[in-house]
Every structure is written in structure tokens, then in C-alpha cells.
């Protein structure tokens, strides 16, 4: 039977796909797509021997990966230009951050909206600068607006008028209604600068954020990909960051996310064999708390038709309009001079 575990196996052991027949491939690809991991699978299998029809599908996916990441990085660059006059730090989050920092987790990762984190007292200025640079409110509904501002950890979403891409401006990484209250100031203070002048969270904070995201995601629809992010990041950070394990424990405690990080790492170890970097007092080796099993059941709940099974809320592969909107015939509007080709005669 195909489910999330089939996808996890293909990701962690690419050689395991060798025995798949045409039905096996069909189901694996559908399940991976439904879990938003098709892009990753395509990159992981880039050098594997593939039957021709599966290879065609995965080649298309890899092509989309390139254009998708290019667009995501350009959105970050556009935000950087728009916020040039904002004196505070602009911190990239999630997929865009992985891609901008060149982390392994970016490989094949689909990236949707641009998510940035700024200091809460800078929100007004950031909002004003984005509006000036062509972003506009998605829903000008005063109730939604008030709700977002009062309870959520972000401004109401903004969409760019000509590029048709969304930006979410966060001032912390969990809704204010959630239990834990991460230390937003510490997240920003510890962020690392990129050559572009934008920032990404520190390695330990990136893991804390991904773990917070997992528990805040009510139906766990993005759970599997979220855990794959965590797996890739942890594998990279334990090699590249000295004392990563201790730092992670400290930061998780600081943000009140010790339980969340512990659970996320246990789950990713179950699914992907993530190395153990985080030891909690409770639970001996080999014993996974019952609630973890429940999480895993829901996270891996997909079938070979790409249906979310086990009564999971269906997740739409949400695609916004691909219609190209031309920038308003830019200069034709205000042609101010008479330009005559050729030399003056």
C-alpha cells in the first residue's frame, strides 16, 4: 500500500525505487505530489535510473523547481529593494530563507508566499513601504483586518499588484493565540546576515520555527514536508555548526518550544532517520509516546491517488492565477520627449 511512508522511503533511500513497476511509480508520484514533496523527490532521484515515463514527469517537476525558486528569490529581492529605507533587520523565513542561504533543505522545495519577520515596532513602517512599492491588501475586510492585527503573528497578507505574489509580514513565529510565546526580539537579534543585506534566522532558531510551525498547523497538512525540512537542516547544522545540539536546547527553552522541538525531532527521526541531537528527560530509547504515533498516522495519511486519507482535511494544491500581468505599458503612457532615431540632420 502506498502512503507517506512510501514517499519517506524513496527520499531517504533513492535506490529503493528500483523495484517499482508502473503502478508503483504512479502511486508514489501521486502521493509525493499530495504531500508537496514531488519537487524534492525529483531532485533526490535526479541521478537514479528511472523508467522513461516517470523520468518525463520528474524532468518537468525539476524544471518547475528552477522557475519556482527563481521567482521566490526575486520576491525576496523585491522586498529588499522596497524596504531599503527600513532601518531594522528584515529576516527571511521558511523556504525562501533556505534558498537564499543555500541550505540543502532548499533542494526541490516548493516555495509559496514570501514570509518575512520584522520587529513589531517596525510593522507600521514596513507596511507603509510595501504599500508604496506596489503591494496591496488581499482582502480589504475590516473585520479580517482587525482580527489579523490583534490576534495573528502577522499583518494581513499583501499581494503585489503586478507580480501577483503574496507577502506575509510576521512579527513573531506563532499566533498570539498559541500557547508558547517565542522571544521574537531574540530571533531577530540572533539572525544571520546574507550578502544581499537580508537576514535568515540562526540555525537553532530555524529548527525552533519549523517545530513551532508543525504544532501550529492544525490539520498537519504540510507536516511531512515540514519534517523533511527539519531533517535536512539538522543534518547540515550538526556538521557545520559547532555545539549545535547545546545551542538548540538553549534556544528551544528560551522560546518555550522545548516540547515542540522534541516532538518534531522524534517524528523526523521516525520518518527520515534524522540524527539524534536533542535529548529530553522523558522517554527512553525506542519508546515513542503514543501521541507521536497519532501525529505520524495523520502526517503520512495519503493514498496512491493522492487523496488525503484517514479523514484528514484535504489539502488543495493551491495555485494562484498564472496569468501574466504586464507592467502597465510603462513608458508609452508618459512619453515626454520626441525621440527621433538617427543623427540630427
Amino acid at each position, binding site marked *: 500500500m502506498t502512503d507517506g511512508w512510501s514517499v519517506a522511503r524513496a527520499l531517504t533511500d533513492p535506490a529503493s525505487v528500483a523495484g517499482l513497476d508502473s503502478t508503483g511509480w504512479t502511486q508514489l508520484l501521486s502521493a509525493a505530489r499530495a504531500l508537496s514533496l514531488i519537487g524534492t523527490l525529483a531532485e533526490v532521484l535526479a541521478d537514479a535510473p528511472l523508467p522513461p515515463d516517470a523520468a518525463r514527469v520528474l524532468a518537468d517537476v525539476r524544471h518547475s523547481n528552477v522557475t519556482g525558486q527563481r521567482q521566490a528569490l*526575486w520576491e525576496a529581492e523585491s522586498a529588499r529593494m522596497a524596504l531599503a529605507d527600513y532601518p531594522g533587520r528584515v529576516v527571511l523565513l521558511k523556504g525562501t530563507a533556505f534558498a537564499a542561504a543555500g541550505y540543502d533543505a532548499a533542494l526541490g522545495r516548493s516555495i509559496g508566499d514570501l514570509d518575512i519577520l520584522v520587529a513589531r515596532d517596525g510593522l507600521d513602517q514596513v507596511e507603509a513601504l510595501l504599500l508604496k512599492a506596489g503591494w496591496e491588501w488581499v482582502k480589504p475586510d475590516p473585520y479580517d483586518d482587525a482580527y489579523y492585527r490583534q490576534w495573528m503573528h502577522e499583518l494581513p497578507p499583501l499581494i503585489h499588484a503586478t507580480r501577483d505574489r503574496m507577502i506575509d509580514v510576521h512579527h513573531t513565529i506563532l499566533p498570539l493565540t498559541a500557547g508558547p510565546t517565542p522571544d521574537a526580539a531574540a530571533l531577530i537579534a540572533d539572525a544571520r546576515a546574507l550578502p544581499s543585506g537580508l537576514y535568515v534566522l540562526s540555525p537553532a532558531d530555524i529548527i525552533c520555527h519549523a517545530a513551532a510551525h508543525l504544532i501550529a498547523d492544525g490539520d498537519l497538512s504540510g507536516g511531512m514536508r515540514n519534517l523533511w525540512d527539519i531533517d535536512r537542516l539538522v543534518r547540515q547544522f550538526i556538521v557545520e555548526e559547532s555545539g549545535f545540539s547545546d545551542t538548540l536546547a538553549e534556544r528551544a527553552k528560551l522560546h518555550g518550544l522545548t516540547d515542540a522541538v522534541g516532538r518534531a525531532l522524534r517524528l523526523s527521526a521516525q520518518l527520515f532517520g534524522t540524527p539524534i541531537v536533542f535529548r529530553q528527560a522523558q522517554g527512553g530509547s525506542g519508546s515513542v509516546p503514543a501521541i507521536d504515533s497519532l501525529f505520524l498516522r495523520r502526517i503520512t495519511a495519503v493514498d496512491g491517488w493522492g487523496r488525503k486519507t484517514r479523514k484528514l482535511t484535504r489539502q488543495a494544491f493551491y495555485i494562484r492565477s498564472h496569468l501574466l500581468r504586464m507592467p502597465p505599458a510603462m513608458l508609452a503612457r508618459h512619453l515626454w520627449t520626441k525621440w527621433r532615431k538617427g543623427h540630427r540632420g
Partner: protein
Amino acid sequence: MPSAYAALPASALKRVTLGGLEAIYHLPSGITHLLAEPVPDLLDTLAAQAPGRYLTAGEVLGLIRERFDVAGDDPTEQPQNVLAERLAELAALGLVAVMHHA
């Protein structure tokens, strides 16, 4: 100090003439622009400079005056100011590089 502008590396733009307009594919963003004169001429002027050389709007105006008649429709508008606006728009679209303190 006025802002100064330079062309992007040639590999960043694909330019195709379509009748009287020019379609420009901007590789870093994947966005297509359809531009009328004088934009292609501005881009050509910047691209003709030595790599890394930034020009102010005034300097660009000096160069294109050698090849084109430049006369404003509105006599109260200084060509240099309007040119500076156009260049700033191109920079905002990412089609030219900008240095804010030349």
C-alpha cells in the same frame, strides 16, 4: 548626490524587437517587460559603457543627445529630471543596476 545607473550583465536580459516595441525577458525575476522607446535606447547607452561604470541621469542625457533629438513636450519639465524618473523606474523593476550615492 544623484543616483547613478549601470547596465545589468548581458546574460541577465533577453531582448527581442517586436515591431515598434521591445520585449525584454529579465532572467533573475522571470518577468517579461514590453517597453517602448526610449527605454531600449537607455539600456543600449548604459550597456555601451565599460563594465562597472555608473552614469547619472545627466551623464546619460549628455550621451543620448549626441544621437537623438531630445525635446520635452512640456517646456516646464527638465529633460534631465524626467530621465532620472525613468531610470529610477527601471531600477525599481530591476532592469538596471543602481548606486544611490555616486
